[in-house]
């Protein structure tokens, strides 16, 4: 049976949905005339009409979550990782982090200025950006604060509320290197500043090497225009790097000869270490894996077979291996990686498991193509002390003998 949030109950989900479906159907018979696929001795009814823009079934309830905070504009919402399949996050469920709210921008008037240490400053309309050779790539985005709770405590909360500040999409745009070929790059241009058109004019410094390597100015996500909360009409996309540097609602890029030490690369998103020091420009998100099912708040309703599944990703490149422990890290066995496995993107893993009904701890541990192995929480804290950002320690889910699943530190 469900422990706390009935949405997370594995055992009761199918039965409850069936009951909900029955109730919904009987009350909506006249309106939408749904048909049964179980009986042949009943009359059939026509379904609903075509529509201009699709929506999910009204019976689906999974949503982003957000905490009540001082401001809904300077806030974040979290992706329901526990309820998603495969490696692509629907745009409507992509996590959000806004510092001054979601601006309303008309793409017919929005412009991107590139200036500073360039030979030819240029200004582009959104339509002009779309005329350049385009490029699509599947990549994760993760807020560097994702999972940061683990540095200090282990609240008994869901995967979504622990680690939901990450998502993965197909992004389409123009490579920034193509745009910088148009402006030229002067000798001495070692960094650039990317700036948004939101109320706070969010700004970050980006090293020119990364900008010329794989950064893009993106205008589409999962095949359609960016959602407003993802930067409509254009955003910077910086594969493998922390979410904050993917500047949304991009309006300006200035090539400069030094990092500009903006608020979000000094006072925020820097990592407190021991002895009062802090690590700066720790852009890249290191390899991390999460078992998404079973996970916190769910309940295993029966002994026997369960599929353990989850996602793994690395800002350094491809995931090469995911291992599962069903005994609190004492032994590890390799999970199956589902194709495609792409650099700096989610990889979906699966692992068959027979639960004996005894309490235990489930963990996943990933390795990327550089040989980097996802560390334990203890190893991270030993190296850095209790920090704030860039937490990628192994996640532990305790399975109690009643089948309930809980976030724990081991």
């Amino acid at each position, binding site marked *: 049976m469900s422990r706390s949030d009935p949405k997370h109950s594995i055992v009761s989900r199918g039965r409850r949905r069936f009951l909900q479906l029955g109730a919904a159907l009987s009350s909506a018979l006249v309106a939408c005339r749904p048909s049964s696929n179980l009986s042949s001795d009943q009359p059939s009814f026509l379904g609903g009409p075509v529509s201009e823009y699709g929506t999910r079934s009204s019976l689906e309830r999974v949503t982003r979550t957000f905490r009540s905070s001082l401001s809904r504009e300077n806030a974040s919402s979290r992706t329901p990782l526990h309820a998603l399949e495969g490696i692509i996050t629907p745009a409507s469920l992509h996590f959000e982090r806004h510092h001054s709210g979601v601006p309303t921008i008309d793409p017919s008037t929005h412009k991107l200025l590139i200036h500073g240490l360039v030979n030819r400053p240029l200004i582009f309309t959104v339509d002009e950006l779309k005329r350049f050779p385009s490029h699509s790539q599947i990549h994760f985005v993760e807020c560097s604060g994702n999972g940061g709770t683990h540095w200090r405590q282990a609240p008994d909360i869901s995967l979504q509320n622990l680690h939901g500040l990450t998502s993965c999409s197909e992004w389409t745009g123009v490579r920034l290197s193509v745009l910088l070929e148009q402006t030229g790059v002067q000798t001495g241009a070692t960094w650039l500043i990317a700036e948004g058109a939101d*109320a706070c004019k969010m700004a970050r410094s980006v090293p020119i090497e990364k900008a010329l390597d794989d950064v893009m100015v993106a205008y589409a996500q999962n095949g359609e225009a960016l959602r407003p909360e993802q930067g409509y009409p254009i955003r910077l996309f910086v594969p493998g790097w922390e979410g904050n540097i993917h500047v949304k609602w991009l309006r300006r890029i200035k090539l400069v000869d030094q990092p500009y030490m903006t608020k979000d690369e000094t*006072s925020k998103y820097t990592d407190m270490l021991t002895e009062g020091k802090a690590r700066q420009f720790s852009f890249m998100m290191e390899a991390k894996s999460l078992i998404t099912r079973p996970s916190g708040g769910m309940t295993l309703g029966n002994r026997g077979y369960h599929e353990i599944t989850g996602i793994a990703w690395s800002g350094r490149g491809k995931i090469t291996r995911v291992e599962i422990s069903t005994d609190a890290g004492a032994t590890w066995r390799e999970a199956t990686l589902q194709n495609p496995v792409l650099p700096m993107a989610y990889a979906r893993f699966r692992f068959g498991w027979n639960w004996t009904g005894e309490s235990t701890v489930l963990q996943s541990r990933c390795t990327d193509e550089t040989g980097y192995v996802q560390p334990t929480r203890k190893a991270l804290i030993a190296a850095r002390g209790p920090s704030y950002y860039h937490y990628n320690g192994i996640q532990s889910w305790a399975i109690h003998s009643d089948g309930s699943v809980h976030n724990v530190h081991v």
Partner: protein
Amino acid sequence: MFMCRTGIAVVGLGLALTSATYGHTQSQRYDIGRTPTAEEIAAYDISVAPDGEGLPPGGGTANQGQSIYAVRCAECHGATGREGPNDILVGGQGTLASDQPLRTVGSYWPYATTLWDYINRAMPFETPGTLSADDVYSTVAYILFLNGLVEENQRLDLETLPQVRMPNRDGFVLDDRPDVGPTAVHPVVASPVSHPRNEE
């Protein structure tokens, strides 16, 4: 350019592994876009560098900033910058190495120019862009005064603001990860973050 060279060297480790995935398109000019006017660039360009590049004319003192702070800032940051409910601006010096580090403008921010840039572009929260350059200089002066970093009547302007030495200027090190696991670089010797001016 010590900062840049060091920073790139660290970043470069990661890039070498990913560039094969992407490759680069052939260099080509497409004749798309137009040349902005100087006025357009000036209207857009609000960036302020740690060395003061980009700071506008004008100036102000903590005395002048006190009333601006009280009306425009105190509601979110507290009467003396220590109360919140939003970011604590004042205090915390000497706490960064403790179990309860308090990261404020005075204890943590490495450059005073960052405070000017951020207030100018993003504050007050609900009405950014409504403070004049003089207002921003004065508010910055007041917050720095509350942190004991400038005198009450010390005028801050495009010349003097970058000269304010923040206590945590040398408190940052560059990215030396991986710092754990089989690929970690041992022993960990992180390079301090330094600004070009410090090298000159």
